[in-house]
């Protein structure tokens, strides 16, 4: 049973007073005595203690004398009580602690010179602090090292059995992959079942190991801590905004460490609600792409011999000349731009400024178009907030969490830890509506399996249930009675039979979920790709707003609606206005006044908001195909490998007169390009990323530039200047100060800005007319097929970028296997070595199949990161009617066993 923080949002522990070294100290009853002492600023040595989990009390270092007790007590496991008189210094305590260190050292091999923890080892520090000089009867264990795992080597000789790795894995990660295991008279730390460790590889065990018992294969023996330069930056994979320490020597990244470490063991346990400082497998072990041999060191120019490395001078001359020629011949609207949300805020800002103010077109888009814009635009319209409403702390302290269509442990592992902490420490009820039995569903109190693509219907069903079961908040609906009447009328039109049929869950389950959500004082909705990356994602988010509004949870503290963006800076891309409908600061591009403000500051006239001058991702591709767009500037995006072939991206790109790609790697799209500009990765530039909470985190330059690759902002500035604009930024800081002037308070010192929902005008203007259309279940227009093919993210990868990181590919290679439920495999008599043919209206693909019992019967899964075999080409691409978000991660297929294909 986890020891709860004594102060929760619901209960306050009584205050007590005790005496520590003669000083009176105020505290809360029930807190670990160790915490009370460390809050006074005194540091007692402890090797098995970490504030993120319950005290374990195995190292015997944190000894203190408590009046009334004869022997020293371990302060970590003792609880503070009123009137305690504690002494934590003295020769007797020093001697007792020294004895404890000696006890650990007698069985420790003194192989410090070859140990990776040398210089970053708590046992070393303790031996030094306590002056251990001689050891009698030193007897190292002499055990072989456990090298069975793919990443983590466990050397039991060095282990001091503090249990930190086991505790953090069990309590914080809730993965519970490690255990103590008695083998031949010695206690070992092994993976559950004494097999090779294969877990989520978040590496928190590695971070908290105070000695060198757990080491990392990817950087084994290649460094000593004092050789490394440590740069604090922000992880560039997902939008969780984790702080990372890039540890580099020369131009090599040797390892990535987290703020979570045995060195930062003192903290307030309640503070973990804001994040525990750890990383996931991608952040910790996916750094190899930065030093990859596949990186582009020089710009490439297409000649008769294909793409040839050329100097920047020559390349830029060609780019500028041809862009100017196209602009002169066909006008600015023959040029369009796409940028990835893996760029920093400053680069995103510069890019949209380059496209709008210098080139003079509003045909630009970012990868936030793949889903996050559905959420931000709907939320903007309904409540005036274009981002997540809740912070990590709100999520951790929620009473009820409603997770819809998100495989949160895979897409955003660190956000999922907030949900896990809510479950474990604060006892939250969690409803997980997802077609698959996801990892979070296994831990949740109320897993709710739904049909594939049933998310939107599930939201409608929840609203219907809330309205019909009279779970509404009278004050909230009383403020907008007309809107509520319209909503009531709209949901009455839905029949429970069709709804439950589409949701794939029973009416009772839906009603229970609705009741739990409505009755909870702090209820938070988290939705993910299953809601926002669908063709009806925009209306689904509006329906979620209805749900929160009628239950009175729009403006209640600790409640809110959140969609989790997948790529690192999707929120920043929206905030910086890299979309044809948005200006920086999320003001509408159609808003004359806002546009005039930016035009004045930039000293240009901006293109108007006519459809002819504006285009989003899908329209840009369409116009490329029609020949209206002659030149496309693609920064870090890879539409060819992302969108299914049904969208005819290749045809569109081949039709272009000039395709400029700017990327650290030669992507599939770049292979078609006329010019490839070699760009830097996040480790080689300064800037900021905006995470899902709206915090703006610093990205810092950790490495020198890779060969002739240049940061994106530098390329934008050079291009802007060459095209004759005044873009005299000498650093990202200069761009930052311009953003600060235009969007006051955007950076807000890295703190999430508080949000306030304002649904009033939305509910009073036009709501009643639109709501009817939103509560009509779409007919089953999906093409026939016996299986639902889902393309989704896996924990070990993020987009296509992570497939360049050899460390992640080692952990999760592309086996090219389709995952199916074992029952389906048995029904179709598909064996381990049999190939299957997967057929959709778009074609068919032959591949092997493997069993995954977590999938629902009738569904199959393929990771979206890999295009070999080209499973993505089987899917249909449907776009959202309002936001044009392309949806292509789900389709119906038929699967048949191929005869005679034994491998």
């Amino acid at each position, binding site marked *: 049973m986890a020891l709860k923080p004594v102060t929760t949002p619901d209960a306050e522990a009584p205050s007590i007073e005790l005496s520590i070294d003669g000083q009176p100290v105020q505290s809360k009853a029930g807190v670990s005595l160790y915490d009370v002492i460390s809050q006074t600023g005194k540091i007692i040595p402890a090797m098995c203690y970490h504030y993120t989990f319950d005290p374990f009390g195995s190292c015997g270092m944190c000894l203190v004398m408590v009046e009334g007790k004869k022997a020293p007590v371990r302060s970590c496991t003792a609880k503070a009580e009123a009137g305690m008189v504690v002494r934590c210094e003295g020769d007797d305590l020093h001697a007792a602690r020294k004895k404890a260190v000696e006890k650990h050292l007698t069985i420790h091999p003194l192989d410090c010179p*070859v140990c990776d923890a040398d210089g970053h080892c708590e046992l070393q520090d303790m031996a030094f602090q306590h002056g251990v000089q001689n050891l009698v009867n030193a007897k190292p264990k002499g055990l072989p090292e456990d090298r069975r795992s793919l990443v983590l080597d466990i050397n039991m*000789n060095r282990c001091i059995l503090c249990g930190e790795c086991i505790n953090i894995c069990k309590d914080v990660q809730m993965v519970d992959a490690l255990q103590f295991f008695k083998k031949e008279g010695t206690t070992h730390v092994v993976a559950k079942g004494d097999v090779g460790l294969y877990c989520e590889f978040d590496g928190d065990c590695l971070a908290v190991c105070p000695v060198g018992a757990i080491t990392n294969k990817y950087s084994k023996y290649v460094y*000593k801590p004092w*050789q490394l330069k440590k740069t604090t930056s922000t992880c560039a994979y997902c939008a969780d905004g984790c702080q990372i320490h890039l540890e580099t020597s020369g131009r090599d990244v040797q390892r990535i460490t987290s703020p979570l470490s045995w060195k930062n063991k003192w903290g307030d346990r309640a503070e973990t609600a804001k994040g525990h400082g750890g990383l996931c497998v991608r952040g910790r072990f996916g750094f190899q792409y930065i030093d990859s041999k596949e990186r582009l060191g020089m710009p490439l120019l297409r000649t008769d011999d294909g793409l040839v490395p050329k100097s920047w001078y020559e390349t830029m001359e060609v780019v500028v000349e041809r862009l100017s020629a196209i602009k002169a011949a066909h006008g600015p609207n023959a040029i369009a731009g796409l940028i990835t949300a893996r760029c920093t805020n400053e680069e995103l800002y510069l890019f949209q400024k380059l496209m709008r103010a210098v080139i003079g077109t509003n045909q630009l888009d970012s990868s936030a178009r793949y889903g996050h814009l559905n959420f931000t635009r709907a939320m903007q319209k309904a409540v005036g907030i274009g981002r997540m409403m809740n912070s990590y702390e709100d999520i951790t302290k929620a009473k009820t969490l409603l997770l819809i269509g998100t495989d949160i442990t895979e897409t955003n592992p660190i956000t999922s830890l907030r949900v896990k902490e809510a479950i474990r420490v604060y006892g939250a009820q969690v409803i997980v509506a997802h077609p698959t039995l996801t990892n979070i569903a296994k831990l949740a109190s109320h897993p709710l399996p739904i049909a594939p693509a049933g998310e939107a219907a599930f939201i409608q069903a929840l609203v219907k249930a809330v309205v019909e079961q009279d779970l509404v908040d009278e004050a909230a609906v009383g403020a907008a009675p007309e809107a509520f009447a319209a909503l009531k009328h709209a949901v009455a039109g839905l029949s429970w039979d069709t709804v439950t049929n589409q949701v794939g869950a029973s009416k009772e389950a839906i009603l229970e979920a609705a009741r739990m959500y409505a009755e909870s004082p702090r209820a938070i909705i988290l939705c993910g790709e299953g809601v926002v990356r669908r063709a009806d994602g925009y209306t689904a988010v509006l329906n979620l707003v209805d749900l929160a509004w009628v239950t009175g949870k729009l403006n209640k503290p600790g409640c809110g609606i959140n969609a989790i963006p997948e790529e690192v800076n999707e929120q920043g891309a929206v905030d910086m206005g890299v979309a044809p409908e948005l200006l920086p600061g999320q003001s509408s591009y159609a808003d004359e006044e806002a546009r005039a403000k930016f035009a004045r500051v930039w000293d240009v006239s901006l293109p108007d908001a006519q459809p002819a001058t504006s285009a989003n991702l899908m329209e840009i591709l369409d116009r490329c195909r029609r020949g209206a767009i002659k030149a496309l500037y693609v920064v870090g995006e890879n539409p060819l490998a992302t969108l299914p072939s049904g969208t005819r991206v290749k045809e569109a790109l081949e039709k272009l007169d000039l395709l400029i790609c700017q990327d650290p790697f030669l992507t599939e799209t770049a292979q078609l390009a006329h010019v490839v500009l070699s760009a830097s990765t996040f480790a080689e530039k300064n800037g900021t990323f905006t995470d899902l909470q709206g915090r703006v985190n610093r990205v810092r330059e950790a490495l020198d530039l890779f060969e002739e690759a240049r940061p994106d902002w530098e390329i934008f500035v050079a291009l802007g200047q060459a095209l004759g604009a005044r873009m005299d930024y000498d650093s990202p800081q200069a761009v930052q100060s311009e953003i600060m002037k235009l969007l006051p308070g955007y950076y807000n010192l890295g703190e999430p800005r508080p949000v306030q929902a304002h649904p009033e005008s939305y509910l009073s203007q036009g709501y009643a007319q639109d709501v009817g259309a939103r509560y009509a279940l779409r007919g089953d227009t999906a093409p026939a097929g016996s299986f639902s093919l889902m393309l989704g993210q896996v924990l070990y990868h993020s987009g296509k970028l992570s497939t360049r990181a050899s460390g992640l590919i080692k952990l999760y290679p592309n086996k090219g296997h389709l995952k199916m439920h074992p029952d389906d495999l048995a029904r179709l008599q598909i064996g381990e070595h049999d190939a299957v043919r997967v057929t959709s209206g778009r074609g068919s693909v032959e591949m092997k199949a493997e069993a995954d019992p977590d999938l629902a019967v009738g569904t199959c899964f393929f990771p979206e990161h890999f295009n070999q075999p080209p499973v993505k080409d089987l899917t249909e691409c449907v776009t959202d009617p309002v936001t044009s978000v392309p949806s292509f991660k789900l389709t119906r297929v038929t699967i048949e066993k191929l005869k005679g294909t034994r491998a």
Partner: protein
Amino acid sequence: MSAGTQEKSLLRTVWDAFSFSEIRTAMRVVFRHMFVKPVTFEYPREKRTIPDAHRGALGLLRYDDGEERCVGCDLCEAACPSRCIKVVSAENPDRPLSRYATEFYIDITKCVFCGYCVEACPVNALAMTKMYEYSTADKRSLIFDKAKLYDVGEQHIEDAKRYLYAHNQEKNDADSRAYRYKFPHQVAALTPPQDPS
């Protein structure tokens, strides 16, 4: 000498000039030294005997069976006050679980010959030798790399060993030798080789 500062009489000056007194004085010194043992010697034909504790060029040593002693622990780099050492280490592909230095550089132009690196070395892989002749026209050749350092160590192995004894680094003590010489290999020997898959 007060005589030098005194004004000489005219007679004295004339007498000195006619009797070649400077030459007489000089020759007196020359002839006297014909019968005295000289304090200098004729380098490079003759060389001075150098004490065992002399701090000369650094060399890397091998065990008697030819195996490299260095485990790439980088303590020498950490100890070096003039920052002239650079070590790059890795896991030995032939002997899993043993660490070795893939690259080892000592910039001898920066070295101050303090001997701290030798003192820091846990396996006595580094030692100073009696070698001091490495003047060159090419300064770049004074950055000793791993091959050069092992070369120095091999050519001056006896001197290196004497240096370690003289500085109390290596004792003729069976226990200490067992510890040092088997250093990280005990665990390595026990661990089964990794599955190539």
